[in-house]
């Protein structure tokens, strides 16, 4: 068992801090970095690492959503609708963990991520060229949809309204995003954010905030199953969670101040890195 000395704990808190910042700004849980770090650098068994990662995702999601919901950046109606299939997927994923080959899952996942990364990059670059990120304005062609929303973007000092489309395929994709949560200890944000942005037309900031809102539920659903199996090391989870929470609150400031196009470009780079990393495995 890994020994939690004061030095180790401090380093893990700092690591958690960076994961928290990443989670706040990009809408991802950071499991893609937490699991390999715990397994490769600290020699923690994979299932224990996944359990700690899920706890960190729940912490990051809860902290960030607490601010974003109150400020209207997270689209709660959209989040709730996607949560249904995401939670179903995460339960299925956690039950299947260990029965499916994680190598094949990661290979397929990586192959999907490359076009997603390219799509995010192109959209971000187009927005940078034309001044700002565009999304379909709400009620552009008549009656507003139940998922349409708006938020105040501090980086451009104005309100941004948007229309949400393609909910049926989005719900279907969310099921697989939830499945990844249970299988690989990821929050699923790496799929949810581009899906909401590219498929549903949700601006990147609102997509990141809504992803943060909903990944906590899928992670919690899987976490309960891992807890019952006795995989979670509470002390280790506590250290990482403290760092993640501090980082999450710091990251919220960046999310509100940064320009959407830059977040979009950074997210496309993140997706690309994750895809390469998974392919190399």
């Amino acid at each position: 068992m890994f020994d939690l000395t004061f030095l180790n704990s401090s380093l893990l808190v700092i690591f958690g801090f960076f994961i928290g910042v990443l989670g706040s700004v990009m809408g991802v849980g950071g499991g893609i970095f937490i699991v390999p770090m715990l397994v490769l650098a600290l020699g923690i068994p994979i299932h224990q690492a996944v359990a700690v990662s899920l706890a960190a995702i729940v912490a990051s999601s809860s902290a960030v959503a607490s601010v974003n919901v109150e400020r209207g950046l997270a689209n709660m109606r959209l989040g709730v609708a996607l949560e249904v299939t995401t939670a179903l997927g995460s339960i299925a994923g956690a039950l299947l963990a260990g029965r499916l080959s994680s190598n094949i899952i990661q290979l397929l996942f990586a192959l999907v991520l490359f076009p997603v990364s390219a799509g995010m990059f192109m959209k971000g670059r187009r927005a940078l060229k034309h001044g700002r990120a565009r999304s379909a304005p709400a009620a552009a062609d008549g009656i507003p949809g139940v998922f349409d929303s708006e938020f105040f973007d501090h980086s451009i000092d104005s309100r941004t309204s948007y229309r949400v489309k393609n909910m049926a395929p989005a719900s279907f994709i969310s099921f697989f995003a939830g499945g990844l949560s249970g299988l690989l200890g990821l929050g699923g944000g790496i799929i949810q954010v581009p899906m909401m942005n590219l498929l549903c037309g949700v601006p990147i900031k609102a997509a990141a905030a809504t992803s943060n809102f909903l990944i906590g539920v899928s992670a919690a659903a899987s976490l309960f199953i891992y807890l019952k199996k006795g995989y979670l090391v509470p002390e280790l989870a506590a250290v990482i969670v403290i760092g993640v929470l501090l980082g999450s609150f710091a990251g919220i400031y960046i999310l509100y101040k940064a320009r959407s196009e830059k977040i979009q470009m950074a997210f496309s780079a993140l997706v690309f890195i994750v895809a390469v990393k998974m392919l190399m495995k």
Partner: protein
Amino acid sequence: MVKVFSDKEFGKLIQRTLLAGVSLSLFFFFLGFVFRFSGFQSAGAAFRAGVLALALTPVARVAMLVYGYWRTKEYRFALASFTVLALLLISVLL
């Protein structure tokens, strides 16, 4: 007269629920470290309580969504939230 439950109030309710859960788990984690470095036996129990508070935070948030959407009479979202709550309970029982 029936008091209107506004979006702002709804947002505040969700915010408070999430912050309460996160704060409670942080409290137990810090307590666990205090116990651990002071050599108390109950450190493990405090850490486990922190993890439990953390894991239950999204559950409490979904329960508040059911309540909030019921109050705002958006019944389809109340039903969706209730379905999520049921799925979370299933995952606890599995």
